[in-house]
């Protein structure tokens, strides 16, 4: 039976309804036996026309929209748009607000990594891990909810600072969650990162060549998983990242395992960054108010800002013509390259069983590809 299938080329549609696909997209695979010969991605199932909608909205009304661009990790989007507007306006941000922003970004990075750990191990069939990590992620989500009122979408970072100050005793609760997560990491290590079968499945699978990674514009953990130390937080420090003590984490190997290890170590590092932020946080105002949002005109000009999200560089190109509404907001999600052209290339020659494994390790996120 398998000998017959070896010779015949089958077309296999993974998605859009398929449990192995991260989100709503489709990969059309040409398969002989268990080996993939050709992969074609089809995206657009989540297209909402955000960039068009933003041209129809006031500047302030754009904030509820941008956070919906990347569903698992909305904060880098808000941060990007807020920073772009600040750059255009030349508005100052209070020091305390900068620290709170870094804390938000790092907490959201941790939440995303927890979700990713679940996805990566779920795609390999280890269902205990998602149950643990997604459950633990809810502790971070609870912090978000207390601070911002929203579980998933926060709309917390806005031009000139953040929406509200930390509530009473919030710092202590953050520290408690950090301690808990740090202690849980040993469990995760024993269950996933040191699991013999996981190592066997992950090592040597989904190799991304070093030169190719540079050439193709790969960003984030996949790039650092090739041993190349690039991180927007170091290359072009924003907020207060240059005043904190941390290193860019890299891992040699270029395979699924090294990407997993980069993420795992960055998770640990994020805990330490949040702790530093809490230690150093100054007091003072958290918002530098601007004009009435209904009559708010942003000076004409353009700005490109970027933020390191959990999956890599998030870039926003914002053009203003001096009117009440943005002229153009163009979003570059990290998955834009990872999810379409790079994935098509990397899947060739891979085993069908590894498709969703590789997808997860690249951090493909369809909503930010099509927006």
């Amino acid at each position: 039976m398998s000998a017959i299938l070896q010779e015949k080329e089958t077309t296999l549609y993974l998605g859009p309804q398929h449990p192995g696909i991260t989100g709503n997209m489709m990969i059309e695979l040409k398969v002989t036996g268990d080996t993939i010969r050709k992969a074609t991605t089809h995206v657009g199932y989540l297209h909402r026309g955000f960039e068009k909608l933003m041209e129809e909205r006031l500047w302030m009304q754009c904030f509820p929209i941008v956070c919906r661009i990347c569903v698992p990790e909305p904060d880098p989007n808000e941060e990007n748009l807020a920073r772009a507007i600040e750059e255009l306006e030349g508005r100052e941000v209070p020091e305390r607000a900068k620290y709170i922003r870094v804390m938000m970004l790092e907490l959201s990075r941790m939440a995303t990594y927890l979700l990713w750990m679940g996805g990566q191990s779920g795609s390999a069939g280890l269902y205990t891990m998602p149950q643990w990590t997604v459950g633990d992620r809810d502790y971070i989500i609870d912090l978000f909810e207390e601070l911002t009122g929203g579980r998933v979408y926060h709309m917390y970072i806005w031009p000139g600072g953040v929406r509200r100050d930390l509530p009473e005793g919030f710092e202590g609760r953050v520290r408690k969650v950090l301690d808990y997560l740090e202690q849980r990491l040993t469990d995760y290590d024993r269950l996933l990162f040191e699991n013999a079968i996981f190592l066997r499945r992950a090592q040597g699978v989904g190799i991304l060549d070093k030169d190719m990674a540079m050439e193709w514009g790969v960003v984030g953990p996949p790039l650092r998983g090739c041993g190349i130390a690039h991180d927007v937080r170091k290359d072009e420090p924003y907020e207060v990242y240059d005043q904190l003590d941390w290193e860019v984490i890299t891992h040699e190997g270029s395979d699924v395992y090294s990407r997993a290890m980069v993420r795992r170590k960055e998770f640990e590092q994020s805990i330490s960054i949040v702790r530093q932020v809490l230690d150093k946080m100054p007091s003072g105002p958290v918002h530098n108010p601007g004009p009435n949002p209904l009559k708010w005109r942003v000076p004409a000009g353009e700005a490109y800002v970027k933020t390191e999200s959990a999956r890599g560089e998030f870039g926003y190109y914002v053009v203003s013509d001096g009117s009440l509404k943005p002229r153009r907001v163009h979003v570059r999600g990290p998955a834009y390259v990872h999810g379409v052209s790079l994935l098509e290339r990397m899947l060739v020659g891979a085993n069908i069983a590894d498709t969703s494994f590789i997808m997860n390790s690249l951090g493909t996120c369809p909503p930010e590809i099509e927006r």
Partner: protein
Amino acid sequence: MSDTLQKEEQIKASINAAFRSAKVSIQRKGRIIVEFRGGILPAFASYLKEYLNFKHLSMISGVDWPEDNQFELVYHLWSYEQSIHVMVKVRLDREAAKTKTLTPLWEHAETYEREIHEMLGVEFEGHPNMRDFILEDWDDLPPMRRDFMTREYVDEVYEWRKGREDAQDVRQTIAEQYNTEVPNFNNEDK
């Protein structure tokens, strides 16, 4: 100020020396804007990539300027070594928007160009694979053009639910549909 912008000035000088038609301006530290008018874009891009080490193509944006009757394509390039971001702007005629593809230089430019083709209607000569990207069976104006009115399109194609346009309570409509009472969401009567 001058010594902090040293790298930027150097790049500006070398671009000006090689390509006369490029107008270079420094926006701020780490941001250079190049307005490229006329000449061959792939040659300029490969110059930036090979000689000035702008290896990373971040994205290609398309901006519509109907008042000038032009499209503006913005190529965002990033140099890992120098931490500088260059925006190369190319203006195209809105009626016959056509330019050369950059896929020989960056293979992943393919997706960006496909998107711009679909969203603005710009033709890319020599693009290997110009199939549908995001939209399916789209036969209206390309949606990212300024003269495409999304409100009018929506009014024409989709049905509004009663309550959206006349400020009626949506719960009322749903309750009527199911022949049930409107659920009470106030906790006052408890």
